[in-house]
């Protein structure tokens, strides 16, 4: 099987330094958003999806596993957080914790089931599992079916930060995103991440070297699902609702698209991809279903001519790891 990425550079001190520099630039740029007059709601939304795409990328870009059901973690965490905040009236930090815990449990179960098959079957299984969950949420009373959970109170984070103020909320979401991103960055560059890459490149060889690849893939799945859940919990504060849209297969498809556009297996690609796709949806909102057609076309174009994605092409051109 040919690898997903054609030019993998080893993680050297130089590449890690490059990536840290880009990370600092990105953090500074994002931190200055409230002073530029850019609509913060848009950026917050994009940040949540960027974190989701990064979590998804951990699985496909470094583990070679294409999950077509990552919306289930986004949606589950969203419902759990929303329920905790609205019905149990928990403070925001505990609400996030409940959402992340929900996604963690879900990823344990779905990971245990789906990791049993590889390649194309893995994608179909994750898709089917997320559809199963979609129907469960459609009927379960606590999700309020088609209406979703609406009007979620944002509250005060740690009793200090008033999340009803857009700027405060923005920085909380930004800190959440950066923390999640750094964690993924750390995972990728850890010995665990190296083994994961080895499995992606050549699983039989990794097995013959004595690695129990199923356990590595399972752990990667749980990490990815839990982090995706973190993104879903953050998104509840931005959107102030939790609905079936977040569990639908089309959402899983969007996450795949974001990562593909930015670059599979690149550190910053998913972030760029998320901003591109969310911006596109924002500007093309008036075109109705043509957005779907455009998204489909981007899929086709990316797969046929642009498989490295935006960041992947840049990295390839400069022979750097980004």
């Amino acid at each position: 099987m040919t690898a997903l990425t054609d030019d993998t550079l080893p993680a050297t001190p130089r590449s890690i330094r490059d990536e840290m520099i880009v990370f600092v630039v990105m953090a500074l740029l994002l931190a200055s958003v409230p002073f530029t007059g850019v609509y913060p709601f848009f950026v917050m939304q994009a940040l949540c999806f960027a974190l989701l795409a990064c979590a998804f990328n951990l699985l496909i870009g470094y583990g070679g596993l294409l999950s077509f059901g990552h919306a289930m973690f986004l949606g589950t965490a969203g419902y759990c957080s929303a329920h905790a905040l609205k019905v149990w009236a928990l403070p925001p930090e505990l609400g996030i914790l409940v959402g992340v815990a929900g996604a963690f449990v879900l990823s344990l179960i779905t990971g245990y089931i789906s990791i049993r098959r590889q390649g194309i079957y893995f994608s179909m299984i994750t898709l089917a599992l997320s559809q199963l969950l979609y129907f469960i949420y459609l009927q379960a009373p606590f999700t309020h079916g088609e209406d979703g959970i609406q009007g979620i109170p944002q509250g005060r984070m740690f009793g200090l930060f008033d999340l009803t103020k857009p700027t405060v909320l923005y920085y909380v979401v930004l800190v959440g995103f950066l923390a999640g991103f750094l964690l993924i960055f750390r995972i990728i560059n850890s010995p665990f991440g190296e083994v994961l890459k080895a499995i992606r490149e050549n699983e039989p060889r990794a097995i013959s070297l004595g690695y129990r690849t199923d356990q590595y893939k399972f752990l990667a799945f749980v990490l990815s699902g839990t982090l995706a859940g973190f993104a879903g919990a953050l998104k509840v504060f931005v959107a102030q609702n939790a609905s079936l849209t977040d569990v639908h297969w089309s959402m899983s498809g969007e996450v795949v698209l974001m990562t593909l556009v930015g670059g599979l297996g690149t550190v910053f690609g998913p972030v760029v991809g998320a901003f591109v796709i969310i911006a596109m949806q924002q500007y093309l909102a008036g075109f109705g279903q043509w957005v779907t057609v455009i998204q489909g076309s981007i899929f086709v174009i990316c797969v046929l001519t642009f498989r490295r994605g935006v960041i992947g092409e840049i990295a390839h051109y400069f022979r750097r790891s980004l």
Partner: protein
Amino acid sequence: MQALYAQLLVGLINGSFYALLSLGLAVIFGMLNIINFAHGALYMMGAFVAYFLLNLGGINYWWALLLAPIIVGIFGMILERTMLQWLTGLDHLYGLLLTFGIALIVQGVFQNYFGSSGLPYAIPDQLKGGMNLGFMFLPVYRGWVVIFSLVVCIATWFLIEKTRLGAYLRAATENPTLVRAFGVNVPRMITLTYGLGVGLAALAGVLSAPINQVRPLMGADLIIVVFAVVVIGGMGSIMGSIITGFALGVIEGLTKYFYPEASNTVVFVLMVLVLLVKPTGLTGRAA
């Protein structure tokens, strides 16, 4: 009891669609190593082509049954020639992503022009009405769908397992290079195979048009169920796909009668159970 038999019949009909679609998926996967995500969209196109033929060209159901699979099959072959063939040698996942994109495009275009509501397609005169079987009332059209699908499935099985053409096909699945060395035009066979698989999906679409109405998203959710069917049955055997398809349809029908709340989810739950007990699927070899 009447209700139980009625649900069993609905189950058999859904089972026919599962069988026709998973059969096409299996045939395509064998030759192209691609999971055709566009299968649901092409099934929908089959129904729409029948609708256009009737309402724009005045061409009746019986001709649509022949023409729609051919038209959609040609469309599929164009897709294969212009896009899918460039994926040879790449990771399987790209095939899934590309066909997912194609599905979004096709469904999006139809949604733009026809919205999300259903268009009616009348049952042909010859198949109207029903007959009393003593224990239940059987609408003729529904009985026709089940029998006709079964015949098509068996014919496809016969074509692939028992004819010379099928032997070439199976040989090319195992080792395309060697078959090419014997002078068989393998790329053309791949294109025709894709056309065949897609044609089966379109045929299922025509069959379902009078029952389920013609809707742009009629295939979008169906394809996910069919994926679960494929995971359960495995894609190694043609007969396996047919049997699993019908069996799961019947199980779904029974669930609708005994525990309707789970009728949407029963196939997925069964998939989970099969994965826990026999991860390679019921008929599949280790992937």
